[in-house]
């Protein structure tokens, strides 16, 4: 396989949970060599259990959630509570370009692995730390996960139905933070490549969320107005909503002989109309006599004023169709529409399948599983899944032996003594 654009860049990765590992996963997809430092004594909790995966897992190598978030990485096990393990971790930093971590601010410093310690080993190291609300400021020791980032960052408050509760959103919030971390790594590496200068980057997960809703902050900055959730509605466009559909059934994928799934995950269709032209096209599809000339819907402003009546009229039509049929008919006419997809719907979606977004990854313990490939396509130095997620300590001999030059007996001894574990 062709090398990725980051080939030759080595990352020492102390991240865990979801956000940090997503960041280094993206680096691995781009071809960096990512060495995850972990320990049997302090397992990444995604190796242990998850409410989504059900009860406690058979072993740390059986976790599919860990696997999804750590594809393409190497694993070395070091018990960082032990000074000798810390010493080895420092030596590893000496052969890496980048260190990443997302522990509570101060934790790595106490272990003797903070930025200053790393810089003592490698003066031009790039180190990227992410935490709940940042590594400086009065609340720097505070902790959080995806839902608290969404809440504190302002996203929850602008996601919701009028008069309903705000939305806690989903695990995607963590992955947004991870994407932000990966970007910071690349910018710092670029600077390093140009000038030879390393640096420390401190990331607030909460600020990562706020930066992605900048327009909402500008609403407040410009007019002092505080935006709130308005369901699926738009401040100027109408119709702009999700509409209930006939629930369809999806045929078995003949080439795979997979299970016949019941509900096809397409229970509603989103429709958005931004112009008179699109409105005319929508009227053509709905086929309701007189609609196009109805004065209630004659222009952009009147359609917005009468959006509830519009929603009612449109849903009378959508209820007669599956979401896929509705979306296809609307798109043929030039109206923006898509099925509202859930997990099963995504896995079956014809477009995503033709684009090959899911690929088979063989893992020695978990077996063969479908996994999402890289979210971008690079023509010459491809992003790719180059190896499955690592078993715990799978690459100890490569990392300690080849990279640090330790003899096998030495590694075995460290393993017996619980340093490498």
């Amino acid at each position, binding site marked *: 396989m062709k090398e*990725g*654009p980051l*080939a030759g860049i080595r990352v020492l990765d102390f991240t865990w949970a979801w956000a940090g590992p997503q960041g280094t996963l993206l680096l691995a997809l781009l071809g960096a060599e990512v060495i995850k430092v972990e320990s049997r004594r302090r397992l990444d909790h995604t190796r242990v259990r998850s409410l989504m995966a059900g009860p*406690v897992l058979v072993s740390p190598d059986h976790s*599919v959630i860990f696997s999804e978030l750590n594809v393409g990485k190497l694993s070395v096990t070091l018990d960082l509570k032990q000074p000798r393990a810390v010493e080895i971790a420092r030596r590893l930093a000496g052969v890496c370009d980048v260190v990443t971590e997302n522990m509570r601010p101060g934790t790595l410093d106490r272990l003797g692995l903070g930025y200053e310690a790393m810089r003592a080993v490698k003066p031009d190291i790039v180190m990227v730390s992410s935490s709940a609300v940042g590594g400086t400021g*009065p*609340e*720097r*020791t505070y902790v959080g996960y995806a*839902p608290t980032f*969404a*809440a504190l960052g302002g996203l929850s*408050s602008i*996601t*919701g139905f009028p008069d309903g509760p705000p939305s*806690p959103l*989903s*695990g*995607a919030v963590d*992955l947004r933070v991870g994407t932000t971390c*990966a*970007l*910071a790594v*690349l*910018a710092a590496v670029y*600077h390093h490549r140009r000038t030879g200068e390393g640096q*420390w980057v401190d990331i*607030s997960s909460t600020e990562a969320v*706020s930066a992605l*809703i900048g*327009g909402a*902050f*500008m*609403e*407040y*900055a*410009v007019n002092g107005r*505080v*935006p709130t*959730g308005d369901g699926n509605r738009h401040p100027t*466009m109408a119709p*702009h*909503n999700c509409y209930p559909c006939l629930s369809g059934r999806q045929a078995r994928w003949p080439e795979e002989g997979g299970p016949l799934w019941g509900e096809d995950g397409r229970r509603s269709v*989103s*429709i*958005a109309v*931004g112009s008179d032209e699109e409105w005319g096209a929508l009227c053509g599809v709905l086929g309701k006599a007189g609609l196009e000339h109805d004065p209630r819907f004659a222009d952009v402003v009147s359609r917005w004023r009468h959006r509830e009546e519009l929603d009612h009229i449109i849903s009378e039509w959508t209820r007669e169709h599956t979401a896929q049929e509705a979306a296809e008919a609307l798109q043929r006419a*030039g109206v*923006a529409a898509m*099925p509202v997809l859930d997990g*099963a719907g995504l*896995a079956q979606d*014809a477009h*995503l399948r033709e*684009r090959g977004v899911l690929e088979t990854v063989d893992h020695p313990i978990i077996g063969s599983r479908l*996994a*999402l490939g890289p*979210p*971008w396509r690079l*023509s010459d130095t491809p992003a790719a899944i180059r190896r499955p997620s690592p078993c715990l300590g799978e690459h100890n001999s490569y990392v300690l032996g080849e990279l640090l030059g330790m003899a096998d007996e030495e590694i075995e001894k460290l393993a017996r003594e619980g340093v490498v574990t």
Partner: protein
Amino acid sequence: MGRNVGGHREERASHRRHVAVTKTALAGLRVIELCEMIAGPYCGKVLADLGAEVVKVEEPGRGDPARGTGPFPEDIPHRERSGLFLYLNTNKLGVTLDVATSSGRRLLRELLREADVLVEDLPPGRSEALGLGPEALREAHPELIVTSITPFGVSGPYRDWRTYHLNLYHGSGHSSFIYQDPREVVGGPLVGGGYIGEYDAGLAAALATLGAVLGRLRTGRGQQVEVSKLEALVALERVEVNRFANDPTPVRFPGMVGGLVRSRDGYVVITAAQDQQWKGLVQVMGNPPWSQEEMCRDEISRAQHRDEIQPYIEEWVARYASDEIYRCAQEGSVPVGPVRTVAEVTAWEQARQRGFFAEIEHPEAGRLEYPTAAYRFSKTPWRAERAAPLLGQHNDEVYCGWLGHSRRDLARLSAAGVI
């Protein structure tokens, strides 16, 4: 090795600039942005804010449609005062150029000769029609990185589908994976606020673009970077999507113990599933008798008895203000966050002390406070060197200064509607 591999532009850039120059991470990287609305411009913004020299190309007379989208001060539309446009285009240079004219395309090709990266969001097929397709660009500019952002990518049955943020967000699965008590979900699938999915696509594009820029340092060659907005969004639900791809049986998510809970004056979210966090929460609540019962023993039993445990937590939370819960829980190391409005975030001491907001002066919109970015680079800080460009503000600087055209040429191009 060809000219300017990896960008020798830094020297030139610093000669040209008259303003005080902060040392930036992407200094010397030159980007041409041919994008509108949110996703592509956010990609350009991320790079510009980190120091890249980004030239935003807009249609003469009309400009980026984001200029016509509010919020406007006092709700009076004005193409130089859109809050959305101002946020998305900080630190860029702005030129006008009509790609539909052959003179405009000539000018664009001259710009591309000076550039390291082109970011474009033309509909699939349109770029080829304009002579900006992958093959043509590759031939003319072998070192250029070309990032193309489209809703669905350049292939597949939905390639030419028309979409707005609403459609892509709901089409990407995000609205089905929400962490929420099923009893509280009313009104069906719900779109993420603030057009967040568009920003997500822009961020994904910026990351892949920088990846390609680093790749070029090694190979000396440019390449095509294809970004599908839908796939960028789907990738953010990697765990869920992979789960369903391998096992389509829907899981009944019992809801989190804690999760979104109503306080005396709003809402908080509590994530205390793991044992250590749970113990912290119990302590903060004052070790109530129910918390010592068998149902609270471990993570699994708490999930199984979620419906019995949850009312106790709700009752406790309801007694306090969100901020009180936040302080006392966090002092006990329990991950809790109040649901904050953008006004509350703007006033938040933690964000203010970290300098998350920056005041930027704009000739038409005045002095406004902008969110900056989540990262603090110790050596190459985020910069607010300039506000978003006025329409065509830098035509002179770029066309005359970079490309060597005369002012009289510019007048001719302008008269013909090219710029």
